[in-house]
């Protein structure tokens, strides 16, 4: 017995491949949507992994430092360092801002990393793709390649210029903004110090206040202005633990004795994925459902129209004695072949277009496998309509 479906496809292969490609693009879009969601979750996880911390200490009763702004004194880390179970405690600041290079600027998350032992200080980028880590205490930066900066570029953050000495990959904030790492003191200044005009205004305002500008106390005004120009705050303290200490225990003791809010890795994941990404996730889920329905409708329509084109031949086949199930099998095989072509095209399209998207798109093998079976299922269901039509055909129509 020859394969009727196979012969039909071979005969009208152009139409099939063309339709398959169209369906494939639709499937590709669906896969990419799923990839966008996974990418968002992965962005959150990458942010937590790359900070290298086991605990995050933030301002009391905030969800910071990523989900909410948090402000701590920069000497709090010293008391945390003294707690049992703590291996390293380092200050860190985060500020999302525009970083300028010549004429263009890029939206980045500027991370201020504390000076410390190479490799052991949390907050430092855990791996590089080019260049080196920071060695100087000021005016050097390590940037993520998603910013578009290259080694040796001079970038401007607020009023200072930094030389890019190292490049990283996949260091992004939870909203997908690439990171730029600079020394902590420079970052504190950037977070606090405004442009020159604003500084002049603030100095003038202070001079105008008689309480600060007492003639009998020379030096008072200078001291006040100096205190206004320093920033002794950081956004969080990153803590790594000594081996053998459970994160929850150490977190609890910091909470109790230092009266700060502490999150473990699991809790931070819950905050990032549960609060930051939740709305986007629902949005994408709805999109996926809509795309699946649209795909099913398209496959059903195509198979129906292909079958209707052959209705005369189907009548002849029935007349000359072809079994109903042979005819049904022919239609279903065509639907499945269309689905397979569509899936192959879709997977290839998705893989090659994923890097082009501005945010990270993560395509997992499980998603592809699930997608494959979903496509097959949709094709089977969509072909039922056409099969029903075909089986209802009266073979007598073939005779005059």
């Amino acid at each position, binding site marked *: 017995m020859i394969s009727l479906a196979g012969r039909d496809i071979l005969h009208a292969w152009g139409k099939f491949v063309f339709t398959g490609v169209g369906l494939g693009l639709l499937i590709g879009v669906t896969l990419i949507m799923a990839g966008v969601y996974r990418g968002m979750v992965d962005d959150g996880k990458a942010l937590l992994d790359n900070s290298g911390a086991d605990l995050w200490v933030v301002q009391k009763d905030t969800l910071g430092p990523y989900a909410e702004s948090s402000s701590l004194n920069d000497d709090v880390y010293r008391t945390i360092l003294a707690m049992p179970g703590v291996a390293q405690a380092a200050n860190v600041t985060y500020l999302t801002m525009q970083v300028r290079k010549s004429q263009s600027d890029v939206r980045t998350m500027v991370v201020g990393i504390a000076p410390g032992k190479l490799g052991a200080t949390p907050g430092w980028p855990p791996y590089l793709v080019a260049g080196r880590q920071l060695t100087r205490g000021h005016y050097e930066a390590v940037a993520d390649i998603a910013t578009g900066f290259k080694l040796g570029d001079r970038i401007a953050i607020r009023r200072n210029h930094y030389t890019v000495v190292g490049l990283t*990959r996949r260091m992004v904030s939870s909203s997908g903004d690439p990171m730029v790492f600079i020394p902590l003191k420079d970052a504190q200044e950037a977070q606090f110090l405004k442009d020159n005009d604003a500084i002049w205004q603030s100095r003038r305002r202070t001079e105008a206040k008689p309480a600060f500008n007492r003639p*009998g106390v020379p030096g008072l005004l200078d001291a006040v202005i100096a205190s206004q120009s320093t920033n002794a705050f950081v956004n969080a303290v990153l803590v790594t633990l000594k*081996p053998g200490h459970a994160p929850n225990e150490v977190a609890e003791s910091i909470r109790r004795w230092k009266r700060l809010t502490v999150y473990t890795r699991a809790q931070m994941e819950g905050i990032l994925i549960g609060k930051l990404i939740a709305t986007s996730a629902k949005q994408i889920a709805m999109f996926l459902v809509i795309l699946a329905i649209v795909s099913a409708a398209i496959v059903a329509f195509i198979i129906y129209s292909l079958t209707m084109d052959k209705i005369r031949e189907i009548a002849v086949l029935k007349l000359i004695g072809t079994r109903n199930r042979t005819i049904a099998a022919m239609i279903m095989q065509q639907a499945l072949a269309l689905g397979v072509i569509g899936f192959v095209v879709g997977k290839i399209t998705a893989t090659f277009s994923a890097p082009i998207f501005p945010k990270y798109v993560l395509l997992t093998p499980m998603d592809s496998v699930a997608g494959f079976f979903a496509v097959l299922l949709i094709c089977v269901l969509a072909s039922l309509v056409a099969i029903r039509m075909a089986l209802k055909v009266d073979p007598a129509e073939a005779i005059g």
Partner: protein
Amino acid sequence: MKRLPLQGRTLALLAVIVPLLALFIYVGLRSGPLAPVTVTVVAVESRAVTPALFGIGTVEARYTYKIGPTFAGRIKQLDVHVGDQVKAGQVLGEMEPVDLDDRVRSQDSAFKRAEAALREAQARQVYAQTQARRYMQLFAVRSTSEEIVSTKRQELQITNAALSAAREDVARTRSDREGLVAQRSNLRLIAPVEGVIAERDADPGTTVVAGQAVVEIIDPKSLWINVRFDQISAAGLAGGLPARIVLRSRGGQALKGSVLRVEPKADAVTEETLAKVTFENKPEPVPPVGELAEVTVDLPALPAAPLIPNAAVRREGDKVGVWQIVEGDLHFSPVKLGASDLNGYVQVREGLKNGDQIVTYSEKALTARSRIHVVDHIPGVSR
């Protein structure tokens, strides 16, 4: 007749399907989580390392002389402006004397009065002395009573004391007068050394309090840089080390200098060590006080030891080390690090030997189970 197995049409279709399938398999294996991680590898070499310290500071004058009155008053005149060169002893300005002149005159009169009182006391003393001597002589020839002799002696003593008092009075009024004159001369603001006027804090007519500076003088020859180094990276900082100074307004031009001293008191709040660095040659033109400067202090070179780029240093669990390639497999080797230089190389004290292959850059975080693919440089990173 034997049927040909492949028709032209089937061949055309295969020409489309086979590459598609191959692409599909390639995509499945090479991208996504199944793909191997691209890494670059370098061999550990022994080299001498020249560590250096980096700090930023501001240009300051070593000595700043704040010239002002010693008591409250009003400025009468100020002859100098910012930027003027002054010599030692030059009069810069004057305060209003107000009532000082009158007080000096009053003190003059008091002095003269004291002198007159002294003369009176002297006269009395001379008289008492003569009287005492005469009655002593009379007592010797029994012409007078002992009581009168004692009385005359007592008068002599009284007048002696009065004379001392009058002399001290004169001294007192003289000192008072000299004090007021000194104060009167203090009304003039005098430059203590040769230098340049850096600031003019008050203009004529302004009332200033005692201790408030009216002008500030600095000696441009005595400029130095007050540098702050992060305490963590300040090991080895000591006086006498050579330094390279880059002024902010002259980026790219490195001036030579040396560390004068490390301050005994560090900044506990900002956790920085302070040091003073001087210029070897006075920079032309003179940089303004307060300009920012970046200072690199070169420490003495260390002997050759295995050196690795600091990008290779990673953390795994609680250990610091590098990913080493041993017979094609990835293996995490903990290391103990030594001195590092500003170009990103760090010495390895323990854990690696020369010739070991270590991973420097990778496109993802590595684990012991990662499959790796060694390349020259990571794709996607433009050179």
